[in-house]
């Protein structure tokens, strides 16, 4: 593929400009991007939110979503300019020669139809195949994508299969007409890390087998490293850097790319638990249930002073429920939560103001954690006034001090509404609100998972600095093991409402372990482009020895 002859080019985009509606006026969001895609090549588009990667992905089909319009440039697909093409012409291409895999498969499937009917719709509609032939092809594709029971799964409705399976079924559907180009828009972002592996492997295998060209859009460089031949790094609607995957990873030219590559390198030094000291928080053999459905079964966790305990597990493992039990939002059915040796009332309503003050919480979604009608002054000022009784000048000074502590300029931010801030700034305000109560323990519930990677890392560094300065303890709930590696002293692994393993960070990142811990740890993508191959080979080897590491819903 070194010679770039024009016959090989499937898609050529030149000077693409796209405008988006913001408020009442159009603003340019993609500023003249060029792109070439050869037949059978996989191109990775990467960037943080707002980089324009999804918009460019859709534009490659000649499509602009509502509130967007293509204002300039040409999009040549196999010699035809999609930017100028009529809708009727484009409809012939869509589904048959170009197809699209959306981030949320659950939202992209029609819940009222069986999978097989949705699969056969495109080939039959485009007159490429009849229903029986297409159904036979579906079964082949389902097998290729390693879906369980390929003969029967098509008869199910979308809600009857798991998220990972649905994403693969969607990939199969995209391939139903054997298209020349598939656009994958963050197909694994919504999946648990353990499920992601299977989907990545299946997609890569199918794309290779059929020689389909693909544009793979993601914010995760480690994921794109496994999938793409070539990578384009985008930022604010501009191209930052473009290159072959291996050479870019080995030698990134631009600072921004270097930062993206370094994103998972932040690591705090681990501190061992002090021997013989009473833990700050002790969760002792707690069980809890939502109504009659049990969620936690005898969970015990200790958190020591100035230490960070990471609670990891995939969705549904009960880690957020544990936080609700500790804060008293969901009173435990049995067992006890004690703080500094004193048993806390199970319900937060029975807890004293001081007990509430010492334990603060930071949420996953900073958007919903801040009242959109309040100014920063009031959001941070309220806990100060409420717990510490400050008012007037003293209150104002304290709020300013807290803003400086979280690295926001007080004069610029104190009178703003939370809706005028970016995601990372909002999360900083949430941290300031927690600090305003002068707590000893902060429960962080997936605090970085809604943020872009570079922003997330800044937040982690801030939390680490605050821990060192203010002697805080953290309970860090997360599904992201890179976060764990960055900040944890101790790790607790949860599965289906139970603690399956716990220990210090160093211990936890050294095998061997409980099967689930190994599965979880090994599933975190690494920047190495050979990582997926090596991992799959390793797992195959283990399977021969009778140890199967696979996600539960596979």
């Amino acid at each position, binding site marked *: 593929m070194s010679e770039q002859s024009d016959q090989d080019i499937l898609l050529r985009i030149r000077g693409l400009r796209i405008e988006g509606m913001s408020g009442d006026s159009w603003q340019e969001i993609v500023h003249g991007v060029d792109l070439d895609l050869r037949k059978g090549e996989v191109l990775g588009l990467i960037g943080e939110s707002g980089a324009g990667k999804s918009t460019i992905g859709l534009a490659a089909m000649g499509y602009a979503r509502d509130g967007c319009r293509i204002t300039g440039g040409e999009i040549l697909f196999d010699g035809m300019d999609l930017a100028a093409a009529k809708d009727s012409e484009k409809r012939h291409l869509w589904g048959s020669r170009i197809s699209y895999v959306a981030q949320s498969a659950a939202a992209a499937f029609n819940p009222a139809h069986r999978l097989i009917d949705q699969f056969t719709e495109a080939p039959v509609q485009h007159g490429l195949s009849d229903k029986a032939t297409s159904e036979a092809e579906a079964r082949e594709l389902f097998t290729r994508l390693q879906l369980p029971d390929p003969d029967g799964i098509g008869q199910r409705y979308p809600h009857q299969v798991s998220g990972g399976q649905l994403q693969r079924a969607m990939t199969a559907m995209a391939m139903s007409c054997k298209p020349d180009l598939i656009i994958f828009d963050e197909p694994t972002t919504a999946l648990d890390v353990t499920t992601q592996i299977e989907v990545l492997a299946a997609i890569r295998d199918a794309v290779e087998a059929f020689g389909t060209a693909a544009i793979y859009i993601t914010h995760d460089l480690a994921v794109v490293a496994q999938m793409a031949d070539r990578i384009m790094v985008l930022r604010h609607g501009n191209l930052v850097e473009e290159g072959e995957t291996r050479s870019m990873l080995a030698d990134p030219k631009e600072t921004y790319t270097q930062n993206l590559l370094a994103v998972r390198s932040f690591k705090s030094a681990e501190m061992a638990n002090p021997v013989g000291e009473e833990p700050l928080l002790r969760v002792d053999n707690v069980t809890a249930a939502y109504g009659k459905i049990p969620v936690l079964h005898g969970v015990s966790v200790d958190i020591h002073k100035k230490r960070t305990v990471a609670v990891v597990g995939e969705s549904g493992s009960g880690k957020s429920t544990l936080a609700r039990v500790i804060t008293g939002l969901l009173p435990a059915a049995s067992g006890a939560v004690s703080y500094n040796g004193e048993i806390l009332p199970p319900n*937060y309503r029975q*807890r004293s103001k001081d007990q*509430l003050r010492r334990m603060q919480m930071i*949420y996953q979604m900073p958007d*919903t*954690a801040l*009242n959109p009608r*309040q100014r920063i002054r009031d959001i941070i000022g309220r806990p100060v006034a*409420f*717990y510490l009784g400050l008012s007037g000048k003293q209150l104002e000074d304290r709020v300013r001090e807290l803003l400086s502590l979280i690295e926001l300029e007080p004069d610029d931010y104190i009178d703003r509404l939370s809706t005028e801030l970016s995601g990372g700034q909002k999360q900083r305000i949430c941290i300031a609100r927690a600090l305003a109560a002068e707590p000893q323990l902060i429960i962080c519930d997936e605090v970085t998972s809604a943020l872009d990677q570079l922003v997330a890392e800044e937040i982690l560094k801030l939390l680490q600095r605050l821990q060192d300065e203010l002697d805080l303890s953290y309970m860090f709930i997360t599904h992201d093991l890179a976060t764990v590696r960055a900040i944890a002293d101790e790790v607790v692994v949860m599965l289906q409402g139970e603690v399956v393993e716990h220990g210090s960070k160093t211990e936890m990142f050294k095998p061997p372990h409980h099967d689930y811990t190994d599965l979880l740890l090994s599933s975190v993508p690494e920047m190495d482009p050979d990582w997926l191959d090596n991992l799959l080979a390793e797992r195959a080897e283990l399977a021969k020895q009778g140890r199967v590491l696979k996600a539960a819903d596979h």
Partner: protein
Amino acid sequence: MNATLKLLASAPWSAKFGLVVIFGYAFIAIFAPVLTPYGETEIVGAEFELWGEEFILGTDSLGRDMLTRLIYGARNTIGIAFLTTGLAFLLGSVTGFLAAAISGWVDQLLSRIVDVLMAIPALIFGLLVLTIVGTSIVNMVLVIAVLESTRVFRLARAVAMGVVVMDYVEAARLRGEGLWWIMSREVLPNALPPLVAEFGLRFCFVFLFISALSFLGLGIQPPTADWGSMVRDNATLMTFGDITPLVPAAAIALLTVAVNFVVDWFLHKASGLKE
């Protein structure tokens, strides 16, 4: 102040028209004694005099000046409707927020009471209660306010339900904030736009309700001027081809349309804010 002016300038013509009409009505209501040539209940001429120099809109069934009564009617009808709607909103939103914030049996109790009240047609229920407790302005205001508050309750509860599940409300609860603080500081500001829009609509319904009651003789009692009863008292003129009774009816219609224009605009703005 500048922001308010800018907002007004950006309003569509329908909203501007609505605002002009509403301010016009308010002006007339406030300065009624200055604007009128005669007294509210003063008999100044013969019965049913025609439109002319002396009595611009003629006189009514007792010989009182129509224009004067129309202007005082604005004061009474709008003032009472405003008071009633305000009361209905106070009652409805406080109970609605309480139901959403406490939930459990409080929510059940309040919601079932509201269901029962809403099951009976409001006008018939209003007539029934007013016949029992006797017709007076205070009674009428209270009865209509309670009946209308059921609709406000439904809306306030639904909106507040969406707000109380937000993490910032949970954060306030975990801070140990009291119920009143959560309702007034966390829930109310976020539930306000739909409630304000509903206020405009409710105002129209209350207004029509009062006019209907007055027309039936159970509303605002004579000799107090009021548009509803003015339509009834002079309805006989219609049979002679005189359009005088339609004037107070038109005044009601115009205000209703104007309020709805403004509400539509506000709803549009409010839904835009949520994006």
